[in-house]
């Protein structure tokens, strides 16, 4: 009996000591959560570092000419000669189409949701817009191939080729004919637009909703109409946030893989027309990486991934800084 209780008190004094040293367990806890926070950051760096390492031979062999728009563009897995420009061009052009189509829609949606929509309709509409972002990329691709391309893209492509495509100068962009299946850069851009509208709309809606009501009230009190208030007061006020949202959408468009791969036609040809098939950085990786012919081939594909990584990294940083700036300014204003 005696022995048991001393053992017990010994044990509890050991626990007390441990508890005192570790501040009741808080020091290991803090170290643990800090380590996990660091892990997320290290993961970011590791992605860049590993891609950099695994593309060493390709980088040494081709240098900056790999991503240069000038010089001959060739992608020749048999002859081991690789230039990534056609893919970079394809990625940029499809993303630009997507952005141009998506901007008016998303800003319109954001204005409608934040400024005009009756409160009871706001959350179901927001939910539906966000559901667009939840649909898996492959389903967009499947629907694109069998429904959207033949029914929408091919007819509108033919129309564009017949009207704008015959005008000298514009035929660089709109030269036809579009293939009967509709597979083209235009198709990829249009599907991308549908996919990034939810991103831009949701972030811009939050930007509009964060604008202090005093801005609206002052403008309306001066006799401006609601549209004048939106166009001349709210949009300039939230411009950097909206710009951030657009860049965020652009970042998503650059990296999107499956839907684009399924509808763009996957071919490198000399034409710059939007109505012709193209190829993007993400789709060439998706199509060729698993069956890369030589070490240099797979290294060149990793280098494309590296370029893509840096492009989205820079865009995301700019976008976040812009959106954060608006949030910070609003917080300051609320305090003042």
């Amino acid at each position, binding site marked *: 009996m005696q022995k048991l209780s001393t053992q017990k008190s010994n044990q509890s004094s050991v626990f007390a000591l441990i508890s005192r040293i570790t501040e009741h*367990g808080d020091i290991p806890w*803090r170290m643990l*959560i800090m380590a996990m926070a660091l892990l*997320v950051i290290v993961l970011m760096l590791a992605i860049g570092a590993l891609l950099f390492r695994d593309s060493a031979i390709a980088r040494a062999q081709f240098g900056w000419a790999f991503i240069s728009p000038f010089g001959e563009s060739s992608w020749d897995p048999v002859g081991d000669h690789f230039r990534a420009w056609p893919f970079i061009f394809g990625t940029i052009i499809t993303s630009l189409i997507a952005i141009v189509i998506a901007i008016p829609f998303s800003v319109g949606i954001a204005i409608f949701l934040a400024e005009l929509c009756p409160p009871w309709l706001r959350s179901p509409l927001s939910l539906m817009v966000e559901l667009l972002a939840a*649909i*898996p990329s492959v389903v967009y691709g499947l629907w694109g191939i069998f429904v959207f391309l033949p029914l929408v893209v091919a007819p509108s492509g033919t129309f564009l080729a017949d009207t704008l495509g015959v005008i000298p100068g514009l035929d660089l962009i709109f030269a036809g004919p579009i293939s009967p299946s509709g597979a083209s850069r235009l198709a990829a851009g249009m599907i991308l637009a549908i996919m990034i509208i939810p991103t831009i709309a949701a972030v811009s809606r939050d930007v509009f909703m964060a604008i202090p009501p005093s801005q609206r009230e002052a403008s309306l009190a*001066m006799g401006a109409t609601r549209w004048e208030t939106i*166009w001349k007061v709210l949009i300039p006020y939230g411009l950097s946030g909206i710009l951030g949202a657009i860049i965020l959408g652009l970042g998503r468009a650059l990296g999107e893989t499956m839907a684009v791969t399924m509808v763009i036609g996957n071919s490198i040809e000399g034409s710059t027309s939007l109505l012709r098939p193209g190829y993007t950085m993400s789709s060439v990786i998706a199509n060729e990486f698993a069956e890369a012919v030589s070490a240099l081939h797979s290294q060149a594909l990793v280098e494309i991934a590296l370029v893509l990584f840096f492009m*989205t990294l820079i865009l995301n940083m700019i976008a976040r800084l812009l959106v954060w700036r608006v949030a910070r300014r609003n917080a300051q204003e609320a305090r003042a």
Partner: protein
Amino acid sequence: MTAASPSISTLTSLPAPQKHYISGRAGYARRKFTNSFMLGLTGAMTLLALVPLFWIIGYVMYKGGQYINLDLLTQLPKPVGMVGGGVLHAIEGTLLLTVLAAIIAIPPGLLAAFYAAYHPNTPLGVALRFGTDVLSGVPSIVIGIFGYALVVKTQGHYSALAGGVAMAIIMLPTIVRTTEEMLKLVPHTLREGSLALGSPEWRTSLKVTFPAAMSGIVTGFMLALARASGETAPLLFTALGNDRFEMGKMIQNGLHAGQSLPAIFLNMLQQPVDSLPLTLYKYTQQPDVSRINQSWAVAFVLMVLVLTINIIARVIVERRMAKSRGK
């Protein structure tokens, strides 16, 4: 002073009171017309943007509904060219990959979110939020290449493990962000009360704030799972695909050979596996009509899975936000 300057500058950009513009009857009518026209246009654009949503959902339900049957959910694929068979391998593979990714991503994501929520203004806190934001923008195909370099190359073969790691990286930023948001919604008084009673920080976090934010955090996990389970690109060169994957048979054979269940599962992780989106993608690349038809049915299953989780999770989150705003 600095706070007032933007409002002044924006007010000066209002229309100058020119006679023809502001007071003339025609000018007034024109302004009124522009107003209603543009406001109507934003509403029309919202409706038009929702057309693809209903078009896709409707068409997938209609087309997939024709080809979905019990065989599809319970059978392995028949050889190319033969009618029938199913995608059981992909359903099991999706299950395995998603559970694996959740096991890998949830513990670090949860703990990092505690850091982000309660130390937001330290350098590491700022770096963490910036890091998660940027990580969520990294293209999934790049994460696929990373998974290949990290796991497949070191192990020397494609595996479910590699696919799970890649999917976990896709899930991680969503988990950190939503958990952080939900922890911040818990009233400060709750946490402060616990700390004031002498409870250490870890006990307060795990036993007071975490349970209070639990339902929101779980919905955040569900959203992350839904997003990751629809991804194809990260699996192309990690999980690769395997149309002979059969969980039941592997367990049976393993038990016959006298292996323990954990050992069987560890073996399973070393096999390449398929997933629903991966199968869907491969089937659309084949000229075989019955495969295309099956891909619509796979899309049906995938859409039901992803949309149900999303709608339930978002409704729960919305309710929670409304409740905490109401307080």
